[in-house]
Each structure stands twice: as C-alpha cells, then as structure tokens.
C-alpha cells in the first residue's frame, strides 16, 4: 500500500509545471505530442470562455436572476483538458459542475441556465451533445454511465477493429462522491463487465465544506486498486497532463481493455455554490496558495514563453468572452416562465389517469380565475 495521504502532491502526472514550464515525462509524452500550439491555444480559449461564462453566471445569481450558481472556477484545466480528448462516439456523464466539459460538447452555455433559473430540471438534449444531463443526487449517475458503457460495448462500439470509430464513456464526479455506495457499485459493475468507461474524479479538495480527508485516508486514485481497475493521478491544473492521461484512458477503454480511473487533483477556487460561504471552513492563505496555481495563468505563461499567444489572439478571445457574457445576460433575462399547465407534461410518456385528472382540474381552476377575476 502506498503511504500517501489523500491530499499528497506526490505521484501526480505533470507536463506543465506550476510556473508554466514544460516538463518532460517520457511515459506520457506520446499522449500529448499531438498538442500543437494551435491545440493549446484552443484549450486556453475554451478555458477562458468557461471562466467568463462562469463569472457572468455568478453575477447573474448575485443580481437575483438565477436561483443558484455552481461555479467551476479553478477547475478549467481538468475540464477542458479532458473534454478535448473526448470525441464521437464517446458519451459523457457529467456531475453538475462540468460547464467546461459542456462547452467542449458544444452545449450552448447560456441555455444551460434554464436549470439554475428554475425553469427546467434539465436544459439540453443529451443525445445531441453526447452529454447527459446534470445529476444532482451525488453519485447516482455513475451507475447510468456504467450501464451506458456496457450497452456501447454490446452495440459493437468498442474494439470494433477501427480504432477511430471506437467509443467509450467518460463519467465525472467529485471527491465527496467517492464515498457513496453507488460510485463503488459502479466500479464493481464496470470491472466485472470490463466496461469501456473512464471514471474521472475531479478532486477539488472539498465536498462543500468537508476536506478530502473526511472521505479517505489514501489518495482517491488508489480506490481503483480495490476493484482491479487501472488508475492514474494527474495534476488537475495542468491542462496538458490532464489531456494526456485522458487520451490514454480513452484509448484503453475504447480498445476493449476496460475501465480506467483518473483522479485530477485540483482546487475549487470559488465557494461550493453561490449559497455557500467558504470563509467558514478554509483560510484565505489556502485560497491564495492555490490562486498561484491557476490553471489558465499556467498555460498562458507557457504559451507566452514559447511566443504562441499573440496580442491579437488575446484580444479576439477577450472579445468573444465579453460577447458570451453579454449574450448570457440577455438570454437569461429574456426568458419568460412557460404556461403553468406545462408542468403536467412529460411526467409519463403515455397518459396516466392521475395526471390527466389533475391536469384537467388545474386547467379548470386556472380558468376560474380568468373567468371570475381574482379570488377572495
């Protein structure tokens, strides 16, 4: 057994140092070598857009336009690094904080906010984006992801003979989620079925207020050992390394070699949600220390150093970010609540007597106000 505490910094795969210098790691280089400066600029752009959107959503919540916002600040490298390794026909099961991954799946980010404005429980068409809906019950979706992966395998989408066509599932969840029975059952089902799935833990070091030490006494990556699942632990603020390990894991899964677990060690720079007050359970010093490891700044420093980030590109991304913010604000404010009667839709796929009776009652009830004017 390794003698690592769950927050140990040892044994992390890293290809870009905290100070923005590129590190060589012969084991992982093969999975990063396709990352041209252009690809890295794209990663930087996606991370920047994610952050801009995130900031706008936070401010919309402060203004009362959203009921709640779940920020992914600080986790952009973990999300964009992995998201850019995903392709058709892979399928993604996010938790509820994967806005960066959503961007890589072409989800229209402003549209996602219907959920946080209280208009819908699920905002996008999962099939269209190969990106399942957010799941708020911690860990529940990991079993759906596993079942989906088993079904992909049955459908011949794995080890098909043409590696370019093979697919796998990527399933995201948090450090806190690892304690749930469902997550561990997912490991069981994935392992015995040799399912094509990459379990991707974003260890942002907190489950709301609880540090990872409340969930485990060894690294979360090690959890995989108990189930016979290969694993890797990566610096989650290093977008290159995250991309590389995800590439490796996906190739492994798509090739029919079964599940893999990735722990991306990162930091939740914002509070848990806009309802949370992180000052109650962690220090400014801790936050400051991690601000030094900002994943976007890290890549920026590197791109700058190799002369691949022109002012022109910066300006264009800044303009795009601003436009995204503006569109987000306008979109959210433009939304009207749909007619009340719509809450009776899609409870069942086929009519259900109880629902139909209640829908009819409510319709008459609503009409009675229109007919009689306001009650009482």
């Amino acid at each position, binding site marked *: 057994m390794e003698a690592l505490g769950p927050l140990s910094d040892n044994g992390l795969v890293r290809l870009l140092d905290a100070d923005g210098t590129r590190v060589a790691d012969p084991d992982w280089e093969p999975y990063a070598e396709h990352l041209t400066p252009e690809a890295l600029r794209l990663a930087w752009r996606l991370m920047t857009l994610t952050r801009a959107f995130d900031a706008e959503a936070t401010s919309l919540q402060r203004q009362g336009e959203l009921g709640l916002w779940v920020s992914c600040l600080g986790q952009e490298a973990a999300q964009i690094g992995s998201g850019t390794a995903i392709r058709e026909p892979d399928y993604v099961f996010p938790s509820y904080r994967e806005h960066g991954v959503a961007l890589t799946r072409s989800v229209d980010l402003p549209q996602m906010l219907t959920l946080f404005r209280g208009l819908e*429980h*699920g905002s996008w068409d*999962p099939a269209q984006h190969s990106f399942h809906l957010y799941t708020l*019950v911690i860990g529940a979706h990991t079993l759906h992801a596993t079942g989906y992966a088993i079904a992909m395998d049955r459908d011949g989408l794995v080890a098909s003979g043409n590696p370019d066509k093979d697919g796998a599932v990527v399933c995201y969840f948090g450090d806190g989620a690892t304690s749930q029975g*469902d997550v561990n*059952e997912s490991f069981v*089902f994935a392992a015995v079925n040799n399912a094509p799935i990459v379990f991707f833990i974003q260890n942002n070091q907190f489950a709301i207020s609880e540090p990872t030490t409340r969930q485990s006494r060894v690294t979360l990556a090690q959890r995989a050992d108990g189930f016979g699942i290969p694993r890797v632990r990566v610096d989650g603020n290093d977008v290159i390394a995250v991309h590389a390990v995800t590439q490796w894991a996906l190739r492994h899964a798509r090739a029919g070699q079964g599940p893999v677990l990735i722990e991306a060690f990162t930091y939740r720079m914002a509070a848990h949600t806009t309802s949370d007050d992180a000052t109650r359970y962690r220090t400014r010093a801790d936050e400051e220390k991690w601000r030094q490891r900002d994943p976007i700044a890290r890549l920026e420093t590197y791109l700058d150093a190799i002369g691949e980030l022109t002012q022109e590109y910066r300006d264009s991304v800044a303009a795009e970010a601003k436009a995204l913010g503006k569109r987000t604000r306008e979109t959210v404010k433009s939304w009207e609540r749909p007619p009340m009667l719509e809450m009776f839709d899609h409870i*069942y796929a086929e009519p259900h*007597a*109880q629902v139909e009776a209640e829908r009819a009652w409510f319709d008459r009830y609503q009409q009675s106000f229109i007919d009689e004017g306001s009650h009482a």
Partner: protein
Amino acid sequence: MTDTNHGAPEAPVRESAVKTMTMAGAINAGLRAAMERDPKVLLLGEDIGQLGGVFRVTDGLHKDFGGDRVIDTPLAESGIVGTSIGMAMRGYRPVVEIQFDGFIFPAFNQITTQLAKMHYRSHGRIQLPVVIRVPFAGDIGAIEHHSESIEALFAHTAGLRICSPATPQDAFDMIQQSIFAPDPVLFLEPKARYWDKGDVDTDAVRTRLDDAAATADIGRARVARPGTDVTLVAYGPTVRTALQVADVAAGEGTSVEVIDLRSISPLDIPTVVRSAKRTGRVVVVHEAPTAHGVGAEIAARVGEEAFFHLKAPVMRVGGFHMPYPPSKFEHEFLPNLDRVLDAVDRLMAH
C-alpha cells in the same frame, strides 16, 4: 375509461392458443415471447441465469438466450437498477428481477430519484422502459424480508407505473405489455400465487403491445366477479381471497362484486366508483398494512367521488402496523377469509 372487462380477451379465442399454466409459468412464457419479439429485451438480476431465479421464473431462458441476454449481475440492487437505466438510455429494454420484495430498498434511490424522474427531467427526451419484477407479498412461510408488500412506498412517486397480475392470463399479458410500454413499470408478482394454475390464451395480447395500447391495458381494473351488495377491491394476492369471500358470502345471501385492480399506478378509480355507486358498500383488501396503504387512497377517492351513494364508510382490511411478523403469525396478520368476511358482515349491517 374502463367500459369493458379486460380480463377476458377481446379477440376470438383460437383453441390452439389456450394453455394451462401456473402464474410463474405464464410469466416465464411472457418473458420468452418478449425476448423473441425484440432483441433489445434483456433480463438482469441475481441468480436468474443458470439457476433460473430462486422461483424459477426465468427457468430455461439462460439456456435458450444465453448469458448475454439473461444476465447474472453482481449482488447490488442499486447497481442493477442504475446500470439498467444506463442501458435503457441506449435503447435497451431491461427487465430487472429483484429477488424478494424486502431487497428492493437498496435500489430505492435509483428508482425514486432517477428512474421515475428522468423522463420529466429531460422534457420527454429520455424514455426509460425498464421493468422491475418483484416477487412480493407473503403467505409462503418465509423468514424476515421475504413477504413484504411494498406498493404504497412507490405509488406516491410520479413517473412510475405499478401493476400486479392476479391470474396466469394477466401475468402473461401484463408482463409483455409492461416491457413494451415506454414508461418504467414496477411489476409485482404475488409469489404465493406463482403455483396457481389457469388457462392462458397466448395469442390475444400480440396486437396490444405497442406503447399506447400496452400502457392503457396495464392501467385498467377488471371486474373479476359481478355483484350487487358489496364491492370488494383487491389486487395481486388478495384477489383469490376476495373471490373466496364472495363465494362464502353468496352462501349467506350477500352478493359481492370483486374488482381486481391490476394497476396500482394509475388506479382505475372510475371502475371502482362505478361499482361503489351501485353497491354503496366498499371494502379494500390488501396484504400491506392498512395505515398509509393503497387502501387509504382508494377510500379517500371513493369518498370524494361516491360520497352521497355510500351507505357506510369504506372499510379496509389489511396487514397491521408492524414489521411483517414471523411466519407462524402470518395467517392472522394477513387479510384472511375470516377477517374479510367479518368486514363484509359489518358493512352489511348498514
């Protein structure tokens, strides 16, 4: 909504298609027919493969369809239901067996927060045609957790359909209709009736397996025996008891109408209310404890819709508010012939 008695097949019966089967055999035959019809139908559960399930309901299916379609899963109910949800998202029709009623609870979260709500959450984009088969209810002399009536714990949750057959014919038809309905269905098999025999027409259902017809059929009650003095509402295991009560009562000059609900979600209230308005006296009989049981909802609805026709309050005969007791006590815990007759007699006093 329910104008005909759907227990009797509507299509003309071709002699050759009628076979005598036990209820377990009828479910087995229904599963087989569904698997033959659609390769997307998969069976999943503990010990359903070579063993054929602890009640042998899947007997022979592993042999004929292979381990890829009749899947022995790890021993984890949440995992079974959760992975079935994922498979359904890719177009499969998983039919899950929960080994006994008392072991469904590890899957309660997946059923209640995921399976039931995904269609709503996705605005109808995701359909989860998952069937959860559960051998349920008591009267088999079993140890703890093997005799429970769990229907009320799921009926309150929208998004699920719940049904329970009381005859081999219904078992054969309804399991297939549940499989081909687009919503998740909790399919409650009265285990003490697995060995009851009856005639089964294996042809009639074939034309009624598309989404809408299948859904409508499994939502309807059936007048199992017409009568004029008292309405006895039962489902699953208590239908047989209710019919016995009707026999005995007939000997005492009381005409009992027996309604086999078949469906618990939705409840076919119109059929019950129609009968209640005629008889003015209603008894609901289920094995589950009466307190907060399905009988409460029926009593409330009959009260709401037939109040001025009732000659006496709706009565409920069921289990007591206690854990299912050790089996030597179960005969008196259950709504047996004497207890139901007692209720009928008391109602007839009005």
